[in-house]
């Protein structure tokens, strides 16, 4: 099964060191079941990790809805009022044919904390992968109403997107924490257990942060980094422009609200002119309604998606940094070995482990980046087309309500 990424990966593997299979370390709990969706076992003898192979093979499948076997939805927000606090829960519904799930369908209730927990767990357990972003955790009380319909709906959409992105990811979707999140009746019980498990994990999951300095980022990753930097800047600019437009639209709306009624007042003074004046007044009123809808839509649908992508890009940049760390550690250890000048030029196991990690990380990251780019393109295409649509609808509404008397034709 040749794949563009497979080729480059094997190039990297064609180095002097060829570790034996037993040096391969499972990098996450998901690697326990190393089999393709159709059940055939995966050859784990290659230097590249099994999960990244899975990654590559399933790259094309993401866009093909028919092979998807896991569907997740977030809906039905409900307010809970308890003695200690008030909070919102969302219903998380899962439909799946995967063997990892005991039942074909699940329906559980989760609150924001739970999503946050899931994300942290994923970041810990899948450090080489890009984890989708969550909507903002903290909202300023008094500035934003945490229980308003608009806020809850915006959040719901973002949480739904979050879970769908994980469900569509060939590696993340098999993560055990994700499974539990979707299925457990009481997540809190599991959370407590999870703490105990964490302490047993040891080195395999722990990645050094900040201890090593990378000399230079390989070109392809440097390119990704540069791209993300510029991308985030441009998104920020678009966010500011969109906000400014909304602000101007609301000020325009304010004036229109005073403008329309004056025509009515005038109509009250007149006889023959009363009809056209009332007509103009009604049109302006209609324009107000349409304009309000437009700016609400932009606030609720457009801006959050934009901001989410900024967060997404920042996450990706962090993953790049982690990758740099892993490479730096490897290079440092390699240097240390070279300097020792021992009699037996045997490569210590831990250096080989490092090299492994670097290669896996690179492969995962590249695969994730490509997926991210594809999704980004689709998401923005949809977002911007949506923005254009809303504006078209606004003008259509306005146009169709314009007052023009039938007598115009006679005149």
């Amino acid at each position, binding site marked *: 099964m040749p794949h563009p990424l497979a080729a480059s990966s094997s190039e990297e593997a064609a180095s002097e060191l060829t570790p034996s299979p037993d040096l391969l370390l499972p990098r996450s709990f998901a690697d326990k079941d190393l089999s393709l969706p159709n059940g055939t076992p995966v050859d784990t003898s290659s230097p590249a990790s099994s999960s990244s192979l899975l990654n590559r093979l399933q790259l094309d499948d993401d866009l093909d809805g028919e092979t998807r076997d896991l569907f997740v939805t977030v809906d039905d927000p409900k307010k809970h009022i308890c003695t200690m606090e008030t909070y919102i829960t969302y219903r998380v519904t899962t439909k799946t044919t995967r063997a990892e799930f005991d039942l074909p369908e699940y329906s559980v209730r989760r609150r924001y904390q739970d999503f946050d927990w899931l994300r942290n767990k994923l970041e810990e357990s899948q450090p080489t992968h890009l984890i989708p972003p969550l909507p903002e955790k903290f909202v300023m009380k008094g500035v934003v109403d945490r229980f308003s319909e608009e806020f809850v709906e915006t959040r719901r959409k973002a949480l739904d997107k979050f879970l769908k992105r994980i469900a569509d990811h060939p590696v993340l979707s098999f993560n055990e924490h994700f499974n539990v999140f979707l299925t457990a009746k009481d997540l809190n019980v599991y959370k407590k257990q999870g703490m105990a498990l964490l302490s047993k994990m040891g080195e395999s999951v722990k990645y050094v942060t900040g201890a090593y300095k990378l000399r230079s980022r390989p070109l392809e990753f440097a390119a990704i980094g540069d*791209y993300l930097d*510029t*991308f985030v800047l*441009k998104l920020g*600019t*678009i966010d500011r*422009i969109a906000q*400014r*437009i909304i602000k*101007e*639209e609301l*000020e*325009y709306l*304010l*004036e*229109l609200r*005073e*403008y329309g009624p*004056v*025509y009515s*007042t*005038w109509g009250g*003074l*007149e006889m*023959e*002119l009363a009809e*056209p*004046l009332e*007509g*103009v007044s009604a*049109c302006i009123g209609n324009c107000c309604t349409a304009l309000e809808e437009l700016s609400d839509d932009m606030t609720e649908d457009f801006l959050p998606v934009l901001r989410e992508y900024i967060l997404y890009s920042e996450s990706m940049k962090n993953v790049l940094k982690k990758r740099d760390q892993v490479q730096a550690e490897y290079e440092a250890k390699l240097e240390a070995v070279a300097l020792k000048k021992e009699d037996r030029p045997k490569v210590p196991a831990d250096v080989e482990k490092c090299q492994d990690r670097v290669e896996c990380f690179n492969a995962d990251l590249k695969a994730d980046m490509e997926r991210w780019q594809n999704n980004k*393109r689709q998401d*923005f*295409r949809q977002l*911007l*087309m949506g923005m*254009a*649509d809303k*504006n*078209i609808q*606004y*003008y*259509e509404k*306005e*146009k169709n309500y*314009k*007052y*023009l*008397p039938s007598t*115009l034709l006679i*005149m």
Partner: protein
Amino acid sequence: MERPEAEPLGASHSCQTGEAEPGTGPAEEEPGGAAAGTMMEDCLSKKIEITVSEAEKRTGRNAMNMQETYTAYLIETRAVESQTEGQCSPPDSLWRRYSEFELLRNYLLVNYPHIVVPPLPEKRAEFVWHKLSADNMDPDFVERRRIGLENFLIRVASHPIICQDKIFYSFLTQEGGWKEMVNETGFQLKADSRLKALNATFRVKNPDKRFTELKHYSDELQSVISHLLRVRARVADRLYGVYKVHGNYGRVFSEWSAIEKEMGDGLQSAGHHMDVYAGSIDDILEEEEHYADQLKEYLFYAEALRAVCRKHELMQYDLEIAAQDLASKKQQCEELATGTLRTFSLKGMTSKLFGQETPEQREGKIKVLEEQIHEGEEQLKSKNVESREFVKSAWTDIERFKEQKNHDLKEALISYAVMQISMCKKGIQVWTNAKECFSKM
């Protein structure tokens, strides 16, 4: 701005056949002035085509010998017949400045107080939104003023009564010495200063109710149109802002497209459409200024309407005072003749205390009073006639004006609606184009 409709719909109005001599008012005209039947063919506007075709900056010396800059406007007149015959003879032309237009209008106001005299375009730019300059020398302002002045002349020329005024005709045709000619008519002396005192109230006992209602209407109309124009200016300002900010999308999409592969082209071309969108507001708002100018004309017309009502009020007041005066003189006369004292007067008291006057003295007084009474009765009669004349001819012109106003404003409102529809269509077009570009991303 469209030319005002020369034919009011279905109104009956007078078109004086007699010569209106400079400096005289309608009181000297035939009483049956409000005759049925239109005689629009006699209106000047049918005979002469009037245009204010150019505006020019001039410098000169004013009355205090100080240098000033002002704008002069070129008035061109051309006989209509010469055109229909296929000959295009060169027009007659002369230059006038705004102050001369003002002089003409003031002359008409004084000499035709029963006419709703067409207003001039505003002296200073008001109700401006930020992009427009409030400077009188600004070319856009000058251009809109030029159109307004042309409109004014056409309105006067289309009016069946004032189009025949000689001073008006001279204004259009006689360059030199016109100002002196107007001043020689002495119209400033005729002006009733009380008309200028807008809010002074006169206790009128029996005004014609129609005029009272009309004055009230004109006050309300002025108020509502002012309000409308103020808010419209703010609305224009805001709309301008909305459109212009979209232009920023153009730049950022272009920058973004530089780092994208497949998305690049779609973004770049969508950005171009955003620029088009942002630029389209300039034409839209320029067109709307014409609408605002049409409203302004009627704002100022409301003032002219008010002036006619005011004039009636003052005439009625003078009439009532004169009648009151006459009545009291008659009473005095009667008391002297019969020797009875009905009303308290100091004279009466002193004569009671110090003895009555001699019969000769009394006779003398009675004679004087009788003369005065006779004079007073004559005056009252003519004042009554004047007043009735005024009411009749004023009301005729008011009916004419109402028709004109309803027609013009209806057209203005409709054209405003059409403008808005056109703006919507443009918006739909641009965003549809942008959407297509996005779809190709």
